[in-house]
């Protein structure tokens, strides 16, 4: 074999080796890329799970806080109604309804049955609020008529059944206490 033939033969061999090395390197790079992608996916999945868990914890904590707030507001409303301070009762009843709506809107917090009951309590509270406002309006109008010289001595004819409203609030309070216990159980499980 001449020197020139040997050089060409060796170059071919070296080329083949280089190709083989290239294939191996490409395979390793591809595997590394797949592993990197898998790792990224796992990290993203873990991050999503952590975010979900945090969100659930936040909503449960929020609800537990709302439950405490509910009890306090209901207690106040009963007091105001008992002393016929209808304007103050009305303000707190509106606040109570807003918090009920907030609770109702928290996604995935409660089952449909509980949500439906919450809707009924919202509706009942809504008409109780209208009733209180109607009574406030009547009292004001009669008082105004009396001030203007009309026979308004029996101003503010009661058309509101305050005991019925207190009954509705007691029902709501019992319902919230039941669900507060469930929330605490959910938080500890």
């Amino acid at each position, binding site marked *: 074999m001449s020197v020139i033939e040997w050089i060409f033969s060796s170059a071919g061999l070296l080329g083949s080796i280089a190709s083989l090395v290239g294939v191996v390197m490409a395979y390793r790079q591809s595997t590394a890329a797949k592993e990197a992608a898998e790792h990224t996916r796992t990290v993203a999945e873990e991050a999503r799970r952590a975010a979900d868990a945090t969100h659930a914890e936040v909503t449960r904590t929020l609800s537990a806080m709302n439950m405490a707030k509910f009890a306090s507001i209901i207690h106040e409303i009963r007091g105001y109604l008992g002393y016929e301070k209808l304007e103050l009762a009305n303000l707190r009843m509106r606040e109570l309804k807003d918090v009920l*709506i907030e609770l109702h809107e928290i996604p995935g917090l409660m089952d449909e049955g509980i949500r439906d009951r919450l809707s009924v309590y919202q*509706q009942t509270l809504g*008409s109780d609020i209208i*009733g209180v406002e109607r009574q406030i309006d009547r009292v004001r109008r009669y008082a105004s008529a009396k001030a203007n010289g009309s026979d308004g001595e*029996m101003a503010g004819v009661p058309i509101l059944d305050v005991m*019925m409203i207190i009954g509705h609030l007691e029902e709501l309070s019992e319902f919230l206490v039941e669900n507060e216990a469930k929330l605490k159980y959910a938080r500890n499980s």
Partner: protein
Amino acid sequence: MIESPYKEIIDGLVKSTKAKKITWFKTSTQNEFKANLPSGSVSVWVDQPEDIFATRITLASIPKADFVIYNQNGDEVHKVQVNNRGSVEYDEIYGLHGLAKQSYLRSDETISGLLNDLGQLE
């Protein structure tokens, strides 16, 4: 006359109440009845005609009847309020109120049941 679409809603409630497709219940306001429907709820109230104030003082500014529409959250969406007992609007609300009261009291069933009971006693 009550404006559209509230008039249509009242007419629909009259029709459905007559067909016994709606359940009315009492609220915390005397002489008020309420019905819940999937999209919201409605209440109808009429001041008691035997209200002694009606005979002692006549105040045009005092509402004598109202019809309220609530959304699913229980918020008031619209209120038709009537101050004059002699108006067409009052008669429209009064008509629905009478049916709602009958529905709540189950007057028809009670009266026919009593007649049936008495018939069996003879």
